């Protein structure tokens, strides 16, 4: 099998590779509409529905001139007839130049990348990895802070099950961050990630309160949703559910550069009065997903940063 350019996780990427992909995404932000992928076919296989991620990937492919095939609902596939994932991937590999896939099973994207020469981009495998989300998070952090180095990053809410915070933590290891884990006891950062921090010399503190004084130290406030269904003790949920809701009144002491991120969808963990606050960045963050995904698709298809910089197919 030739070199496998698939993107399954960002955890093992070097600092140089991450910076390279972020530079490529920045080029796409300058000129998002091009014909550089004209003639290419991108397959989006969503074995688990995810409208937001799918639309973002399909927009990225379309804005670069590629054509898109695929399915948004696994009920329409032969998987319902009992076809194996391997067979589905083998079949689609005959048609597409790159496969973007979301699957409800963990490890599905890695396995898919082992059964085909066509590069796979993991658009989420169960609760395991979601590298394009991490890439857009890092792009957003870099863009708003001007750097990825030496930042105070507060991760708030569900740190136990939230895969985006786990992936971000691992990908940031090259950049000397200080993390602050703010979560209810039931949803605190799992031991294996604290161990990961120790092994990679990542500083972190832990807390159970989100308030004005805590927020004033943050460069990045990364909010996630505290979900009722994650609690075994519903009284505990009732006690803590309002403790992790961010309102505009809590931002008075925030540093000027502080930005609020959220992987979305948001339910009630950020009040609507924050949306117009200059610290709010979650909607722009989602837009950055387009550029990050344009970069990932181009990279797996073997286009280099120089190809993107010297691209003559830009649509002005």
């Amino acid at each position, binding site marked *: 099998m030739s070199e496998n350019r698939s993107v399954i996780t960002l955890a093992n990427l070097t600092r140089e590779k991450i910076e390279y992909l972020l530079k490529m995404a920045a080029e796409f932000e300058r000129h998002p509409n091009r014909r550089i992928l004209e003639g290419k076919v991108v397959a989006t296989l969503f074995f688990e529905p995810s409208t937001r991620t799918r639309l973002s990937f399909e927009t990225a492919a379309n804005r670069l001139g590629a054509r898109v095939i695929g399915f948004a609902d696994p009920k329409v596939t032969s998987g319902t007839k009992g076809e194996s994932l391997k067979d589905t991937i083998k079949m689609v590999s005959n048609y597409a130049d790159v496969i973007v896939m979301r699957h409800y099973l*963990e490890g599905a994207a890695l396995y898919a990348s082992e059964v085909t020469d066509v590069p796979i981009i993991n658009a989420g495998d169960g609760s395991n990895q979601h590298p394009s989300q991490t890439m857009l998070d890092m792009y957003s952090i870099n863009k708003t802070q001007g750097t990825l180095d030496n930042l105070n990053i507060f991760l708030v809410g569900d740190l136990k099950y939230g895969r985006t915070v786990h992936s971000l933590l691992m990908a940031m290891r090259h950049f000397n961050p200080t993390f602050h884990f703010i979560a209810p006891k039931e949803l605190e950062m799992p031991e294996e990630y604290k161990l990961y921090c120790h092994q990679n010399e990542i500083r972190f503190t832990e807390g159970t309160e989100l308030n004005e004084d805590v927020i004033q130290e943050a460069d990045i406030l990364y909010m996630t949703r505290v979900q009722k269904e994650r609690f075994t003790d519903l009284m505990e949920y009732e006690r803590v559910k309002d403790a992790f809701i961010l309102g505009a009144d809590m931002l008075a002491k925030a540093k000027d550069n502080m930005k609020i991120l959220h992987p979305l969808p948001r339910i009630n963990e950020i009040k609507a009065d924050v949306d117009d606050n200059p610290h709010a960045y979650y909607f722009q963050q989602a837009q950055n997903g387009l550029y990050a995904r344009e970069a990932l698709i181009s990279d797996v298809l073997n286009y280099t940063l120089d190809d993107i910089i010297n691209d003559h197919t830009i649509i002005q």
Partner: protein
Amino acid sequence: MTKTLLVSALENGTVIDHIPCDRTNDVITLLKLNQLTSTVMIGYNLESKKMGKKSIIKIANKFFNDAELNQLAVIAPDVSLSIIRNYEVTEKKRVELPEELRDIVKCANPKCITNNEPMHTIFHIIDKHSRVMRCHYCEKEQRIEDAKLK
């Protein structure tokens, strides 16, 4: 009453001693002993000073390579092995946990692709001492002791 051996001595073959009784079937499964045509003698619930009760398996005219034998470290890390040639013990061995377990055990995560697709499993040993492994596919860490054979 004269004392006799419960099972007869081997002329040539492999003896696996100090098997925990509840792992006897797993040893048979792992080494595919049920597919052999040579004589296999299984002693179950034998007295043992070290273990209380133990099992012994004697396999005639069969010699395993280290990779095959090291699989036993997953289910019975303290077994002792004797290689018999011409009624003599010519070699004694212990088993050692390999760096990687390929298609030996199942992943404990029901949402892992390996439990939902006709495919192999791969585990990387994270810590030989505390016997922790990580699934190559879903990345979940798990205790080797809790693993079920494929």
